[in-house]
């Protein structure tokens, strides 16, 4: 089959690889009908995530048709149309029992690597390094889905792929980022990053009762979508001092909650960016932390900072003094997607939201390399690329 393969930093190739097969009794094989390039795939593309190998199949946002199931999968049948959550979760361990699916204790066969880095291991993830399991991803014609009795969600025929594909990751990720803010009536929420997760965080913050959402970015086309489609007010951080602007917009209080929807490759229009860039180049830190620092400083006393952007290692100049002395709450985590898929599917069916509003480009799988470059470089007003294998 054809698959999108990581061949090194900034090198993507669509190659012929062996078809996946059932290995374990809870496996299923899915013929991928739609798959997307995620913002976190850019961290792989840019070489920020360790333990990638040449030839690794990428992709953790995908959906399709079930074409084979293992003997222990009784909830799915061949022909079912499913969306696959990006965390691989067994559904039976202590973490899964607590609905903390992205912390599944049984799905990462290379857990020892993650334990060296983080103390304990999270779940395995499709197409996201060997430290997180080395599972081939879904930017391919077919994908093997472990624990298919737990993860994949059957979706109704009347909804298009475009409407439900993002249940695999970014819609639940934006939603969980907003849910972690414990939004109360009258709250003002600030969201850093108007990429796909940021757009869903804005929309979700409104769904959860936020009075106002302020979004921060520098790309006008992304801020326009945030204003017109998600309903945010926007700040261009290249033209405006974000701290002063949020202070002004909140009557001097600061934002009740701040969401980091950017992560480890953050950019800023000030000296902090040069500082982080220099330190990451010298391997003296692994993250560019400008957004999380700014989010902490812009949050009101006693507020919440919710981190949805991906971080992988160690950052410098983390303002712990502001967190402690101002009673801030920091919440984070890889998304427990399984927990959110059905409720968010209901919201799509009810017409509360049509997630397809973020799609700007559709390309064939064969053009994955061009797609990665376009998405990473934000060419042609690219916000979200959906790829079709057929």
């Amino acid at each position: 089959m054809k698959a999108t393969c990581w061949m090194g930093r900034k090198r993507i190739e669509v190659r012929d690889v062996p078809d996946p097969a059932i290995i374990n009794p809870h496996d299923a094989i899915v013929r991928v009908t739609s798959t997307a390039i995620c913002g976190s795939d850019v961290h792989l593309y840019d070489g920020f995530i360790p333990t990638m190998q040449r030839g690794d199949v990428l992709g953790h946002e995908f959906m399709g048709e079930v074409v084979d199931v293992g003997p222990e999968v009784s909830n799915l049948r061949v022909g079912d149309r499913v969306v696959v959550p990006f965390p691989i979760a067994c559904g039976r361990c202590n973490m899964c029992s607590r609905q903390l699916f992205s912390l599944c204790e049984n799905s990462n066969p290379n857990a020892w690597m993650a334990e060296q880095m983080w103390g304990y291991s999270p779940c395995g993830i499709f197409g996201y390094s060997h430290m997180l399991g080395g599972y081939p991803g879904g930017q391919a014609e077919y994908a093997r889905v472990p624990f298919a009795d737990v993860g994949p969600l059957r979706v109704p025929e009347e909804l298009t792929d475009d409407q439900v594909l993002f249940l695999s990751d970014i819609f639940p990720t934006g939603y969980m980022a907003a849910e972690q803010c414990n939004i109360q009536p009258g709250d003002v929420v600030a969201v850093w990053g108007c990429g796909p997760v940021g757009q869903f965080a804005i929309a979700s913050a409104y769904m959860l009762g936020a009075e106002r959402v302020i979004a921060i970015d520098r790309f006008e086309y992304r801020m326009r979508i945030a204003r017109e489609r998600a309903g945010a007010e926007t700040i261009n951080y290249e033209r405006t001092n974000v701290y002063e602007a949020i202070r002004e917009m909140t009557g001097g209080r600061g934002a009740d909650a701040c969401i980091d929807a950017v992560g480890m490759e953050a950019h800023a229009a000030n000296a902090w960016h040069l500082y982080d860039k220099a330190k990451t180049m010298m391997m003296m830190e692994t993250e560019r932390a400008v957004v999380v620092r700014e989010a902490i400083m812009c949050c009101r006393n006693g507020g919440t900072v919710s981190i949805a952007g991906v971080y992988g290692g160690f950052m410098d100049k983390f303002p712990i003094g502001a967190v402690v002395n101002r009673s801030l709450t920091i919440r984070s985590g890889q998304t427990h997607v399984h927990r959110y898929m059905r409720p968010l599917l209901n919201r799509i069916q009810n017409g509360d939201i049509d997630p397809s509003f973020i799609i700007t480009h559709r390309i064939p799988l064969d053009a994955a390399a061009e797609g990665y470059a376009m998405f990473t470089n934000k060419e042609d007003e690219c916000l979200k690329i959906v790829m079709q294998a057929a």
Partner: protein
Amino acid sequence: MQAQRIGLGIAVASLAGVAVATLARPRHSERVSKTFTVNRPPEQVAQLWLDLDLLPKVENVRFDPAPGGRGTEVRVRFRPRLMGKLRKTSVQEQLREFKQLAETGEIAAGGAL
């Protein structure tokens, strides 16, 4: 000549340091303990331990109820070896596989590095 003596002194001191560090490390013949929690009741875990027989050379194994009814704490003690299935890392991975089998009935299969 003086430089040679100094060089010899540094070399002897380095060797002595390495020797002390080596002796100070835990010996492989010392017993070590590994523990993990399985999300199933103790009697089921104990029975499965016997049935699967993954680590027959482990000297001692205990099955205690985890606090709050959250499964079973399994503690094994063994004398690690430099080679074979009783290497520390090998035991750790076999215990992880036992937990996977006990909780899910299968061993996770992704991609090796």
